């Protein structure tokens, strides 16, 4: 067992898989000699060589485009996009090719690609370094979207993502990279993709979140517990495909649901979960579903980023709203 923070766990998962599967290659800007601007790939080039850990020229389109070619030929590329704010030039390849290659060729070719990219606000980073674009990717057929919220889940989910035969967009909240450490076995054990994780049991309300917002969500659950309100906390972890079974099972018991996410509200992934609850859980609901999200604004520069990020108070207030008249 080792005490690891989230970025160290990401590093260990890549190292483990490179060690055990020679088809895994890592590519991206500054991932080699520098070990990545967040150090997620530190030591990998020394250990596995510059042919498997590739410092690419500066071009996101070509990083993902070439990774698709590699993947179709049986390599398992783990491509790093330095910040998710710079992933958009690669959207063409992700949308038009990564998610469709298997389908277009009726299974003849496939795309076992992982795109790792830091996301989210809260570290006083410059412009374009704080976005949460998960909903854009969750909209795409044929790709998976994963966001870890702890070092151990990051480790297990990244291993699962690399082993998965289809493309996975793996978004890593920068705010969590060094926030806390956790015992991680580093034993090559993957966690299941496509399932939600229940982090806290409760009977009064279900709080559904993912990524860095679980920080505020769990703090809210703690504050609510002081008031005698027992909140269940679910980490969605894999947004696509979405495990509604776990969420519905919980909401059936609690009758109330608050969805918390860092991305903007309109078209955010919370809307998808709320729609599923309306379709499949309406008769279990004792109160309207609430969403606590960022406002529909451009992520502000650092001075206002904590006014943009949903706060514990906003989550508690939303829970109170579901309990009005109860």
């Amino acid at each position, binding site marked *: 067992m080792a005490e690891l923070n989230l970025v160290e766990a990401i590093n260990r998962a890549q190292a483990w898989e490179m060690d055990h599967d020679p088809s895994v290659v890592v590519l991206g*800007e*500054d991932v*080699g*000699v*520098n*070990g990545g*601007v967040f150090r997620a790939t530190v030591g990998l080039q020394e250990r596995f060589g510059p042919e498997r850990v590739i*410092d690419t*020229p*500066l*071009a996101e*389109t*070509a990083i993902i485009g070439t990774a698709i070619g590699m993947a179709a030929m049986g390599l398992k590329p783990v491509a790093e996009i330095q910040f998710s*704010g*710079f992933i958009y*030039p690669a959207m063409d390849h992700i949308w038009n090719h990564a998610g469709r290659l298997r389908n277009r060729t009726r299974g003849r070719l496939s795309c076992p690609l992982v795109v790792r990219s830091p996301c989210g606000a*809260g570290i*006083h*980073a*410059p*412009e*374009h*370094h704080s976005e949460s674009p998960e909903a854009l990717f969750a909209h795409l057929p044929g790709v998976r979207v994963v966001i870890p919220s702890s070092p151990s889940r990051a480790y297990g989910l990244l291993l699962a993502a690399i082993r998965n035969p289809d493309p996975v967009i793996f978004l890593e909240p920068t705010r969590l990279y060094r926030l806390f450490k956790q015992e991680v076995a580093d034993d090559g054990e993957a966690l299941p993709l496509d399932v939600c994780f229940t982090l806290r049991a409760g009977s009064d309300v279900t709080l559904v979140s993912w990524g860095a917002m679980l*920080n*505020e*969500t*769990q*703090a*809210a659950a703690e504050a609510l517990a002081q008031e005698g309100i027992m909140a269940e906390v679910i980490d969605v972890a894999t947004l696509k495909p979405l495990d509604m079974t776990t969420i519905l099972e919980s909401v059936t018991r609690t009758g109330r649901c608050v969805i918390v996410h860092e991305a903007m*509200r309109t078209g955010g992934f919370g809307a998808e979960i709320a729609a599923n609850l309306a379709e499949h859980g309406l008769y279990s609901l004792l109160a309207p579903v609430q969403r606590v999200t960022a*406002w*529909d*604004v*451009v992520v*502000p*520069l*650092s*001075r*206002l*980023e*904590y*006014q*943009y*990020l949903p*706060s*514990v*108070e*906003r989550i508690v*207030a939303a829970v109170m709203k579901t309990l009005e008249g109860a």
Partner: protein
Amino acid sequence: MTTVARFEVEFTRFLNAEGEATQELPPFALDPANLIPLYRAMQLTRAFDTKAIALQRTGKIGTFASALGQEAIGIGVASAMRKEDVLVPSYRDHAAQFVRGVTMTESLLYWGGDERGSNFAVPREDFPSCVPIGNQVCHAAGVAYAFKLRKEARVAACFLGDGATSKGDFYEALNFAAVWRAPLLVVINNNQWAISVPREHQTITPTLAQKAIAAGVEGVQVDGNDVIAVHDAARRAIDKARAGGGPTLIEAISYRLGDHTTADDATRYRDPDVVQQQWANEPIRRLRNHLARIGAWDQEKEERLQKECADQVAAAVDAYLAIPPPTAAAMFDHLYAELPTAMKEQFDAAQWFASHDGGSSHG
């Protein structure tokens, strides 16, 4: 077989590292009165950079990208532009922005995490700094097209890094500008590094200037640490563009003497001894040596200038620190020309949480 295309790329330098003229200087450089403002601007940028890094270290601004060692590029180009021209800068171009009239206070405000820092009092039509690599070259080509369409005698100029030349945006924009014969100047700040990736891993071509050839654009190379060479090349390119001669690409060769940004530690990937050697080529000492040699500069002038720069930077910092923080409402300001009615509820909620101290707790 016949050769159907052939190309050459010219390199220009007027002052060597010691500030000795290696060839006859261009006419503007014969008058020290034209050179001293360039020297002054370089010193001011360097004083600003030193202070900005110190402010970052004490948490007064966020991540900052210094122009250390590359001052001659921004200043040589911006000083060749006219007021009515438009600069489309990247994130390392404050040297040029200051010449254009952007204030150091505005720059600090931007790097300090406040959008008001991009609302320059002057120049009103220059673009804000572009952080996503390479995008600005496309915008600059569009700006140039607008000038051409309206038959305005104006030129668009933009900068990009050596790393940025690997992006499609750069090639695509050059090609557009060439097809449109648009009044555009594209300047590569070849500081030899894209964070940890050295220039020779970025592309195997011997020059970056030759990237212009494929688009049918003139590409030239200059010593980017020789402000006379930069200014001269920029002035020619801008004159050509204004006269309807279309775009030019200038590769200015320099060296990034500092870390990529304050978030970077360059000792992880490059030899400090090599960096030390590169100090011998830096642009400020070079021009000072030249000015001293022709009797236009001395120790007393130098000391006076250093003090002036320090005072000016200190005043800018004071002004920056005195600016009250933005309110939560600022997130909604200028999002659209007018805030849509549908957003009123969010706006009110943001205000309510901000004023009830409820936006502050984050687990």
